[in-house]
């Protein structure tokens, strides 16, 4: 499983650290780091929570197709 660079770039665009996003979502920084590094597949509920915090849709952050290839 590759790294989720779209999540990382969306977080960086809001100038938020992993810790800030993790606290807003209600998980540990290590969990968010694992998601960004592709070491962990989050549940749909957690994906939605992350999308709400970052102001993105599920497609923009997590969907994989020709246009949104996994990095």
């Amino acid at each position, binding site marked *: 499983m590759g790294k989720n660079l779209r999540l990382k770039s969306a977080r960086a665009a809001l100038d938020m650290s992993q810790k800030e996003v*993790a606290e807003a979502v*209600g998980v*540990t920084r290590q969990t968010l780091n694992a998601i960004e590094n592709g070491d962990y597949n*989050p549940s749909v509920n*957690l994906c939605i929570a992350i999308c709400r915090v970052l102001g993105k849709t599920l497609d923009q952050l997590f969907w994989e197709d020709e246009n949104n290839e996994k990095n």
Partner: protein
Amino acid sequence: MKKIEFDELQQSRRYRYGYQSFILLAFLILIDSVISGMGVVWLEHTTSTFILLLAGCTYFICRCIWGDALVGPKETPGRFSAKTAAIVISAAAVAVLVAGFALSKGHNQPSAAAGGNELSLVCTAMWAVIALVYALKRLVKGKPEQ
């Protein structure tokens, strides 16, 4: 008492570590039974079983520390605090005191008391292993409380 809540990654890791600890414990008890069946008694049965239980618990705690699954996101302090340092130092001091007491009383004791001394030594070793794993994690994986 404050309820500790874990996130989903921590929960899945704790389930996995708990399963591994259970399998480890089952194998240790099996090996102990085989050894006892062969006529080798390394400790009194109750004491040896308790020590094996402690070994399983130690494995679980160490794995949780290493996998960042010991405390939930709401319980994690913002930075390494003096309180944490005081707890670790106190635990180490108590472990050393118990070990010293056990070693000083270990000689010229009847066998029943000797079992208690061995348990004290194992508890000390358990604390030492947990403290070592915590220190190694901070060293290898960076400061977890930052």
